[in-house]
């Protein structure tokens, strides 16, 4: 069994090549375990189901295994194991909710709206092309 990484972001994109200009061939999710095929600078080639492979940026990954649904047993395991991390620990949705109750003037609706500003892969490629911008190592 080779080395494995966990996805530490909500959604991570796996691409055809080690570049953000590579086409997205799969989306992986928080806590997913991925088997490493090889690494190249800040990119990791991982195995996908159906004997497919693709590249994901290292910043989306952690070496730890992420436990999504924790119970007491796993908490003590995490304290004594070197390879576990627990999702949702510490500052989480529950803490945010409590903070919101105590700080009603904070504008979370504004933040929610901001989070809807999402730029797709195609829009980025188009933006770069239209501006005659050629990122290093990224010509597609």
């Amino acid at each position, binding site marked *: 069994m080779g080395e494995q990484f966990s996805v530490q972001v*909500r959604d991570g994109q796996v691409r055809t090549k080690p570049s953000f200009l590579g086409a997205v061939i799969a989306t992986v999710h*928080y806590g997913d375990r991925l088997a490493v095929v090889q690494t190249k600078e800040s990119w990791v080639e991982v195995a996908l189901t159906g004997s497919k492979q693709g590249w994901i940026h290292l*910043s989306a990954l952690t070496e730890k295994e992420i436990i999504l649904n924790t119970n007491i047993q796993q908490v003590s395991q995490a304290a004594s194991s*070197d390879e576990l991390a627990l*999702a949702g620990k510490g500052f989480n949705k529950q803490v945010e909710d409590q903070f919101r109750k105590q700080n009603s003037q904070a504008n979370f609706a504004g933040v929610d709206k901001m989070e809807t*500003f999402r*730029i797709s892969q195609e829009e980025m490629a188009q933006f770069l092309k239209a501006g005659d911008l050629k990122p290093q190592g990224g010509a597609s």
Partner: protein
Amino acid sequence: MKVRRLNRRTFLATGARIGMTGLALSGSSLLLQGFGFGDLGSTIEQASKLTESATKSFTAVSKAMEDITPEQEYYIGRTIGAIVLNKYKPCEQEAGNHYLNLLGQTLGRFSDLPELFDSYHFQILDSAEINAFATPSGLVFVTRGMLRCCDHEDALAAVLAHEIGHIQLKHGLHSIEKDRITKATSILAIEGTKNFAQSDIASLTSSFEDSINDITSTMINNGYSRSFENEADAAAVTLLGRVGYNPAGLINMLRIMSKQLKPGGLDFAKTHPSPESRIENLEKLVAGTGAQMPAASQQRRFESALKGV
């Protein structure tokens, strides 16, 4: 670059230490109750446990930053964003915000921290102040006053790249007071999330509020250290060059800013080193990066998107 490797033994030791501190912390509320009800014997016992745990938690401080996962950064960042958007009104100009996100999210993709728990998001603030803020986790705010210091797309790219620099270098998280991190991580060790006891939630929330206050007071009121600003400028120069912008855009923006800043103002005038000193630092970094003429299409879309802002 090598794949980052965590030292497993260190993690093991830190995990164990933090776990113990967490247990002792629930003792601290008992300690307070003890004083109220005069149960001195058990109070002394609790106090000695606390001293022991304080020593343990001290050793955990240096590892505490590493323990703030992207998921936790995300919740810290959202709350700081909500505070910024209470202090400043968001500008609802759709074309301007869309353009800012096209530019900013593209830059974020090519930064040293391309993947965040959620994503980079950018918002224009309806304020004449010259200011920009970035939360841990990727929310970036730019005032209308700051946009007016930018006369070209590469100048605006420079402003956003500087903010992305603060994010990738985790400057916001560094402004949380050290003893707060100790306290926060000790509570973070109470890891069963689904069934937090109400007292744990209250305790966590109070620690959360304190951490948020540390970041906002640095970010909004006092500013980062000069060395953090220089680091963010250096990160911006690298990122701009990587994407294909002229890094001198940052210098051009600072020249305009230095004319527009009002001495004694509560914006960049207060929270940042003077534009002149930043320019001096930047000129060394930018020298030799080779300035290319930007495409005319950049100027057209820049003016068209921001004309209503």
